[in-house]
Each structure stands twice: as structure tokens, then as C-alpha cells.
């Protein structure tokens, strides 16, 4: 296959996807540490949330430009989820998704953990999808 723009997109997203996988794992570990008391929610994983969201949006834009509709379709649900998460947060919040005082609530914590696992699975699958495209 020729080296088209689409191919470039996939190669780039492959690399970035690896980064996302790293973020997801990092989240999982962070929540686990929270649960087991090794860490204070104040230094929670919020710093990595914004990069993750922006990287993922970047993909989507690239696939849109490359007119890779199928791939884009696969990513859109997550994109919307990210938007929802982002805008649901308090107005001028830089805390984003994880509110330190609330994150220790058992429900919130287990929700966040599940979310992190699901994302990890999704990124892994898409990693191989990009790899073998």
C-alpha cells in the first residue's frame, strides 16, 4: 500500500495509542494505590487526564481528515464520552474528572477503576487494529 495520508495517520495513531495505553495503565495503578492507601487523592491522576483527552481527539480529527470512516466510527463513542466527562465538571475546574474529595467514595472509586480498565481494553484493541490495518 502506498504511503498515503491515511497510512501516516495509522502509524501516528499507533504510536500515540501506545501512549494512551500507558496512561490507562497509569490510571489503573493510581486508583489501586488510592484504594490501598498508598496515595492521597490530592495527587491523583488528574494531570494525565487532559493529555489523554486531547490525544484521543487528535486521532479522531486525523481519521476524519483521512476519511477513514470506519475507524472514526469506532472512536466516536469514546470521543463523546470524553466530551461529556469534560463538560460535566464544575465550571472553572482544572480538577477535571477526578474530584479529590469525592473520589474516595466507594462508588466513584469503583466507577473510575472500571472506566480505566475499559479504556485500557479499548486502547489495546485499537492498537492492534491500527497495527494490522
Amino acid at each position: 500500500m502506498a504511503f498515503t495520508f491515511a497510512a501516516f495517520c495509522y502509524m501516528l495513531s499507533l504510536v500515540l495509542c501506545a501512549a494512551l495505553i500507558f496512561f490507562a495503565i497509569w490510571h489503573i495503578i493510581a486508583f489501586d494505590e488510592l484504594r490501598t492507601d498508598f496515595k492521597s487523592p490530592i495527587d491523583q491522576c488528574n494531570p494525565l487526564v487532559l493529555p489523554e483527552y486531547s490525544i484521543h481527539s487528535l486521532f479522531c480529527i486525523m481519521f476524519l481528515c483521512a476519511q477513514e470512516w470506519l475507524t472514526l466510527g469506532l472512536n466516536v463513542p469514546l470521543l463523546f464520552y470524553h466530551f461529556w466527562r469534560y463538560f460535566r465538571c464544575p465550571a472553572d475546574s482544572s480538577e477535571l474528572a477526578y474530584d479529590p474529595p469525592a473520589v474516595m467514595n466507594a462508588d466513584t472509586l469503583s466507577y473510575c477503576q472500571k472506566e480505566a480498565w475499559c479504556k485500557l481494553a479499548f486502547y489495546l484493541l485499537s492498537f492492534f487494529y491500527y497495527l494490522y490495518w
Partner: protein
Amino acid sequence: MSAPAGLPPRPAGAAAAVYPGGPGASREAAAPQSGAPRYQNGPVQSRMQFPSGYGSHLPNYSVPSGHYSQVPSKAAASHLDNQYRASYYPTYYSAPAQNVMTPSVGTNVLNTQESQQLYNKTPAHTVGSAEGPIQGAISSASYLRTSAQQSYSAFGNHYSTPVSSSVASQGFPLNSDHYTMPVVSSAMYPNVSYPPVAAGSVYGQAFTSQTLPAVGQFKETNTFSSQSTSVPHSLQQHVPVGYNTTLTTISSAQSIQDNLCRNLTGSVAKVNNQINTDLASGSCVATLTSTFLLTGADASFGSLQDIMCRSRGGSKYISIENAVCGIDSSQPVHSVSQSVLFTKPGAGTSASSAVISSVRTPAPSLSSQPQSSPSVTQSSELALQEGMQYGGYVNNQASSAPAPLSSSSDDEEEDEEDEEAAIDSSSTTSSASPVLNNYDALEGGGYPETRSVTSSPVPAPSVPQTSKASKPFGYGYPTLQPGYQNAAPPAPVQPNNPGHHPGFQHYPQQYPGVNQLSSSLGGLSLQHSQQPESLRPVNLTQDRNILPVSSVPAPVPNLNSDLRKLNCSPDSFRCTLTNIPQTQALLNKAKLPLGLLLHPFRDLTQLPVITSSTIVRCRSCRTYINPFVSFIDQRRWKCNLCYRVNDVPEEFMYNPLTRSYGEPHKRPEVQNSTVEFIASSDYMLRPPQPAVYLFVLDVSHNAVEAGYLTIVCQSLLENLDKLPGDSRTRIGFITFDSTVQFYNLQEGLSQPQMLIVSDIDEIFLPTPDSLLVNLHESKELIKDLLNALPNMFTNTRETHSALGPALQAAFKLMSPTGGRISVFQTQLPSLGAGLLHSREDPNQRSSTKVVQHLGPATDFYKKLALDCSGQQTAVDLFLLSSQYSDLASLACMSKYSAGCIYYYPSFHRSHNPAQAEKLQKDLKRYLTRKIGFEAVMRIRCTKGLSIHTFHGNFFVRSTDLLSLANVNPDAGFAVQMSIEESLTDTSLVCFQTALLYTSSKGERRIRVHTLCLPVVSSLADVYAGADVQAVVCLLANMAVDRSVSSSLSDARDALVNAVVDSLAAYMSTASNLQQSMLIAPNSLKLFPLYILALLKQKAFRTGTSTRLDDRVYAMCQMKSQPLVHLMKMIHPNLYRIDKLIDESTIHVNDRVVPQPPLQKLSAEKLTREGAFLMDCGSIFYIWIGKNCSNNFIKDVLGYPNYASVPQKMTQLPEVDALSSERTRSFISWLRDSRPLSPVLQVIKDENPAKTDFFQHLIEDRTEAAFSYYEFLLNIQQQICK
């Protein structure tokens, strides 16, 4: 009362334990050792007397109390051997004498009194304690069962016994038929005369006390017959009689203990048991006192006191001690109490011996017979003595009097023989093998090893029992009920708190109704029936008088009475379900929330403080050693939370209390469920911080106009020396309007220096070193500043408020040390970071639809609070505004930094004197109350349970760890729990909160509370154990969260659904109920009422005009108030006070306090001829009817007639009239029971403030809300749907 009942049996058990191994040896040991001498030290005896049996402990304590009260270390000086004890219980014991008195006076009601007594006396027990161990070991196990069974017997006894007669007689008659089965049988009733009853006995007596409360239960109790089979067990327990005798000689008792220890050390249960036993003994004492009380109620108070005095002074008392011992076993219920005191041990012994023999015989019938015979003798004794001295009382109690006399016979003669007899009896008892029971009870049969150990000493007979015993908790109602009876009685409530009870306040409240009991059955059924028959169905739509006569008691967990006595006070630690469901599925079925309500830093009058270089904790889960652990042998203990087996450190083997070695189970850590440790440097991340206080004051035009500065500065000046702290205490001031002003108070300056920073966008500290100064070094400067401050800004025209920048500056100032920032704000912050805009639309105030803006508008304050929390700084907010100030946003600064929030709507110093007075009082309390710095609180619970959500002001650092920059004694917390793993392999669960804090003196301390609850497997049991007040408070917390995260109407729906679901679930379990009626278990009968009250509370009401700040403030309070205060907020207490002279009274500290009954919160209770007092927790309203008698207005209010009473009246004049005196003593008594002194507001019928009063009449219909009856119908409809 239940507690006492349980107790008696134990003693027997104890005795048994002692001797089981080898009666002969033990005996010998006992005699020589004679722990008694120790306990009896001179002082002790004198005091002891009236506690009678218990006395032995008390005396010691009491004596030391004076000495030790301050510091443990001083204890060494004490002549008593018990130095350590003294040190542990510093405050604890000092009070006892008084306490005792008080309760007695008031108390008519048995239960209450007992509980109170327990506290006072518990310490006293010492004697008992010695005994205790023994008893506990053996008896405790049996306890569970026995108690149930015993209760039956007890009933019988009750009737028979004189004591019970007064109280019980009224209540019980109906039930009598049921009881016949139990041993005593119907015969007992007939003999109301009691004498025969007395014979019944040993058990009976003890139980009687319990039974009284239980009255309600009886109806249900038909089950007893079935239970009667268990009787044999009970017998064993009863054996105690023999035990008592032993006790008679104190020394012997102690020796017994020693023996026990040695023999039984292996048994896990022992430790606990011992502890329990002590408590139990205490309870017994309590019963005794209670009996006094009873008599007293009838008689004049003065007479009671006389009695007490006599008892102390009289030589009789020596014998009394013996008698006391006997009492435990025998029982006292003797209600006639006085008689009890005098009863001789000898009699008891004989009885006991008889009992014992009977015990061995398996037949159920045994119990009845043996009891009767022995008891008779005792009773006779009692009767004689009492009759002689207290004849007056007896008469009052009519029926009781005669009986006892007749029964009494040969007490004194036998005294000498008692000891021996006792020993024998005890040995016999041992055969009973109560030990096993104990064990089972404690461990729920989970631990084979322990069993084997325990069993070994015990002969074969015991085995069968154990098998039965092992399951005690889980059983269905038949079994449980007995337990409930014991537990249920309101009185027992207190028993939980082993000793630390501050309070009179508490008790008095509960018991006021008591007097009425004697006079009216109705009262009885209300109060007493509650607990025992917590499952009794109540038809809500028909039963209109569901409100108890006095305040609602906390339910007592259905534990064996040893554990119950050790358990944490419900004031500090309450669980919504006192019977924990086995699985999450069961919990879901019950539709009730599972959670804890904590008041961990409550002011305690007695608190064992332990200084020890090693704090014993579980190696894996880090649980602190507590009364509910089990000692496998002397060197190992098993954690009750994670079940790990730990070693007992060498140091722990030495018991400072008794100065003996090898008694780890008697250490104070294992004897008290609330203890405080002085922590070593291992518990510090940095050297303990000094107390640092920073005041941030709004001085804008608005603030100056309101005039709060004067009050604040005045209060500060007055309390400057009382601020908690040591020589390092530091203090600082910041004021702000559109700029931020700092005050340089450095020592050496001639006058305070004001530094103004006008760059509010980048705030900085002008002179970082001299803004926070040492309070003592710069005191003069500080005083100068405080005197000058109120006048410095009188002419300001600055209307802006730069709160955000001021807070940032405060944070910078505090961050090196941590401490407390007190912020006074009077308006919406309008400049710099954190500025807010008005979000309230006044037209929406009474909207029934959407209430918006309950959450913060900005993160600024939350982030600031988190930063502060990280630097161990708490921010307390005083909001004194006349208009909307967006409390929802501002409150965040306190919420997440573990601060507290005060709100004074429409504050103005001269226009609103009530608020001004409130601020003054609040400030006084605020400035002088205890404070803990850099605190963390961890809540641990038995494996299988986990913490779901926390409620309160704090920052959650981990799944079970709260970070509290400051902790104050008025802060309450709530915790939602979930059951992650099924609890089928355990019969008990424990919760432990450990609060690690730095005291204002720079000491690192750990306060540990431990609560133990049984696990049940049936839905009915779960309902039976529901604590309606705790449930409502937890629901209120959850509803606040819901209204912020979702919407107010969601929260309201959720509240209604909580009632509908739980009642529907209950009705579906009770299949025989008519579906057309709205039925609730007795334990939950107040549930709909409380929920309705919640819905009409400012926080959740709709349709009534409510300012947003008021609403948000109410929500903040719900999250951070401890249960007692919250309940008053939700459901105020209403009393009629224009006829206080006619009301029954109690004596508190030489004051006569009338005890009017609680009234329904309904206008139908208000009459124009009356005057009413409503206690809303933070405010008292006195409502005066138009036609209120002029006498009342003149005497109490000091005005000639109704028309002349002013509109704003906040104080009652001191008029020299009886009704005035009574009213004032009643109000001050109510005030004494809470930390914040409430403001008083007199309201006339046409006063505009009357809406404040009428909004609390929650049973009435309003334009926007249901009346109580309508609400019930609504619920019923929804259930049927």
C-alpha cells in the same frame, strides 16, 4: 434494667469458672489471696457502701479521683494499690457519688436509673471486677442464652419481687398468663405480694430489673415456653448466687478471680468476660441504686438522699458489701432495693447451693423451683432490713412492701457461713460449665481452638450447652427475644458505656417519664415496650401516641450482657442497624441503610488515658487492642477484625491497675471500649504543632454596620486566657475589605502596627515573621488591638469584600505550622479571587419545583480548603449576613478542611439581639472548647464490611482514612457501610475508630472507640435492631448529597421511598398482618414521623419560602452535627411548662428539675391557657398562649399580664417563686446537656416570630405539606401500589 438481670447470672458463672479446675485448690487460693483487702482500702469501704456490692471498685476509684483527676502520673503517689487505675480513670470516678444520687432521685424508672448508675458505679465495682473476671469467663458465654431464659424467670420474679412490683406490676399483669410457663409460673403473679417471688429468685431479681422495661415484650413472649428448655443454662448462670456469697468476702471474690485467671487463662472468652463481669457487677450495683431510686421516686427526694447517706455511714454497709455481692447473683431487684443491700450473703449462699443442685439436673422445671426456694430466703432478708429502714418507701410501693418483709427471715445469721457456702456453691457452679457458653457467645463458635481450651476445664455437662450456645446470635426470634428483652429496656441503653458517662443529662432525659410509670401503666407501655418488643407491630394510622414520654433511647445491641456493658456509648458511636445483616442481599431486602454515626471527639467526663511505650495493635490490620478481642492464652490474642493471632507484648502482661503480672485481659485497654492513648513519636510525622489561631475579620462597611466586631473582640478578650494551648500558642489577625490588612504584633512594639496590602491579585505577606505571634509574649499588644479594632473602621466607606485574597494570605501565613483560621464574613465576596455573584432568585424561594444552586459556584474555596487541609489548617466560617452570601460556595472552605460553619442570618447587634446573643454564646464555646490539631481518623471494621461513603467535614484521604486538620468536640460524622463478603462465619462484627490528634498541649494522642454488634440472618432480626434515629440521620446525610449531586426533589423522593420501601419490606415479611393497615415494627414506628419532619426541615422543604442560605446552612449542619443535636434539629422536643410544679421531678446537683412529658409537635397540643417550651437544639422557644394564667406570666416572665410581655424577650427573670424556679431549673438542665448554650426566645401569639415556632409543628398540615396523618395515608397508598 436488662443489663442487671444479665449480670447476676454471671457471677455464678464466675464462681463456677474459678472452681472448675479444682474446687479445692481454687478455694484455697481464694481465701489467702483475698483480693478484697486491696479493694477495700479504707476509703473504699466508706464509699462503697452504697454502691454496695460494687463498692469495692468504686471506692478505690473514688478516692483516687480527687488525686488523679489531672494527670495519670500523679497516680503513683496514691496510697492505693490501684494507682494505675486511678490514673486511667481520672475523672471518671470522682463523680460517682453525685451521679448516683442524681439518678436515684429522678429516676423513677428503673431502666434509666440503672444505666446511670452503671456509670457511676462501674468503677466502683472493683469488687465486682475481681469477681468479674471469673464470672465473665464462665457466665458470659452462657449469658446470651441465659439472659433470654433468665429473663423469663426474671419475669416471674418480678412479679413476685417487691421491687418489681412497683414498676412492673402495672405493666405486667396483662402478660402474666404468658409467663406461667417459665419456671416461676403463674403462681408468681398471684403472689403479687412478692415474698414468694423473692424466692424465685436469684435470677429473677437480677432480671427483674430488666424485665421491667421489657414489659411490652411479655405479650410476645409466649415463646418463652419453648425457650424454657434452655432453662438449664439459665440455671447455671444463676448459679451466681453461690458466687455472690463468695463475693461477700471481697477477698474471696478476688481470689476467685485469680483462680479464674489461672485456670481459664487459656480461654479466649475470659478476658472479655472478665471485663464484662466487672461491668456486670457494676450493673448490679446500678440495679441496687436503681432500686433506691424507685423507692425514692415515691418518697421525697430528701429521703432518698438520707438513705444514701445512711447507707454510707452505717456500719451496715460492711455487711452491705457482702450483700451487694449477693445481690449480683441474687438479685436485687429486690427492688426493694434497700432490702437488697441488707440481704445477707448467707441467705444467698444457701439459695445458691440449692440452685446449683437444681442446675445440675437437666430438667427445665428446675429453674423455677430452685429459684423460688432460695430466693425466698433472700427476699425475706431483704424485706426485713429494708422494711426496717425504708419502711416508708416500701409503703409507697404498696404491694412490694409487705412481701419483702414476710420473706425476710434469717439473713444475718448466715453471714459467717456465707463465705464457705459461697465457695461450695461456686465450686458446684463450676460444673455448670458456663465457660463454654461464654466462649461461644463471644466468638460465635468460630474458633475451635478456643473452645477446646475452655472446654477442657469444664466437665462433660457443659458440652451440650456449648453446642446450643454456639449459635446464640443467629437464632430466630425465639432465641433472640429473650435477648431483646434484656437489651430492649431503655435503661440498658447506657450500660453500653462502660463508664464514661458524662452524664446526667443523658439519663435524666430518658427517665423523666419514670415517675409516671408508677402512676400510670400507659407510660410504661410506651417507654418500656419499645425495645423489648422492637418487633411488635404498630398500626401507625391508628396508634396516634407513638411518641415516647421522654426522649427516645438508643436501642441496645442484642449482645450478651458482658459485651453489652463493654460496648461503646451510643453517644459516641451508633450504628443504624444494631443487628448487622449477614449478607448484602439481606441488607438490600431490609431496605434500610447500614451505617455508623460517630461523635468521636465528644467531651467526656471520664476517659481512661493510657500511657504506655508500646501500643498494642494487630500486626496485620493495625487494629488497637480492644475489649472484644479474644485471648487465646496468656501470650496471644486474636484480632477481632481480621482474626490474626498476635503476640501479647511483654509489657502488656503487667497490669498497672492491679499491679499484677499475667493478666493482660484486665488492662484498661481491654476493659474499656473508649480509651485514649498517649502516642509515641512513631505516630508523628513532625513534632507536634503548637496551637495556632488566626482570625480573619471582615471590616467592610456592611460588617461595621452589623456591629459584630465588638462582640467578637469582646469575646476574644474575655477568653484569651482560656484559649486551649500551651506556652507556644500563637495568634494572629487579618482584616479585609477591598484591601487586606495585617497586624504586626511583634513583642517589643509599643502598639500594634497595621500593614495594608492593596495588591489583592498577588497577595503577599508583608512581614512573615511577626504576624503570628506568641500569645503570652505579646498579650498586651493583642489586647490593645482587640480593644481598638471595633472602632478603627467605624467610618469606612468601603463596601467591597476581598475574601478570597484574604484567605490566600491566611493560608500562606498558616502553612508552615497549621492551625485554625476563623473567618468572619458578612457579605458576598466581591473582589479578587473567589468572587461570587448572587445566584438566588427571591421569587424562587418558595418554589416547589427546582431548587438550584445548592452546589458551589466556583472551585476556588474547595481548592483552597484542600490546600489548607494539606497543611493541617482548618477554616471555620462565621457568616453573619443580612442578605444572600452564597453559603453554598463559601461553605466549601470549611467542608473540605474539617472546619465548622456558623451562620447568623439577619445578624445585627442591636436590631437582632437574639442572634447577637447566640453569636456571643457560640463564640464562648468556640474559643474555649477542646481542639485537636493535625488529626486523622481511621475507621476499621470486621473483614467483610467496607466503608462506602463518608459524611461530615473532612478530607477523605483513603478508603478508611479521614484527614481532619482540626477536630472539635462538636463535630459529628456519618459513614455508610456495605457488606462485601457474607458474614456467615462470624457472629459478631466490630467497628473501631481511631482518632489520632495533637492536643492543644502538644501531646500526640489517639482516641479509640470500639463498637461490637451481633450478626443476624433473618430479616425480622434486622428490623428488630433498627435504630430509627440513626437511620434518619444517615438518610438525612445521604439526602443532602443527593440534593447537591442530583436535585432536591430527587432527594425528597428518596426519603419518602426509604420509608415506603422499608415498611413494605417489613409488611411482606410479616405475612399475618392485614395488608390494609400501615404497620411498622415497634423499632421503626417513629420512622415516618421523622422522615416527615425531615421533609419539613429547612434543608428539604419545598413550597415554603426558604432562603437559599438558610437551606444550605441546614444541609451543612446535617452533615456535620452529631446525632443528638441533629435529632433535635429534625424533631424538636415540645414541653408544656405552665404546670411544672405538678410534674414529676428529678434532682440534679441539689436542684429540683421537673420532667414534663414530651408533647406531639402539633397545634392540637397547644392551648391558649398554656405555655410551651420547644427545644430545637440551638434555640428554645417559649410560646405563651393568650389566656395563659397571669400567675405564670407574673412568676415566670416577670410581667403583670399577657399584654405587657415584650416582643423580644430572651431571658427569664429570676423571680422568687416556685414556678419560676422550676422553669429556670428545667431550662438550665436542658442547657447543661449540650455544648452550645441555646438562645431563648419568648413568643407571644401575635408575635411575627411565631412562624418560626409554628414551622416546627411538623405533625400539622401546611399549605405545602402533608400533615402526619396524610403522610401516613400517602405512604400506605404507595405501599399498596
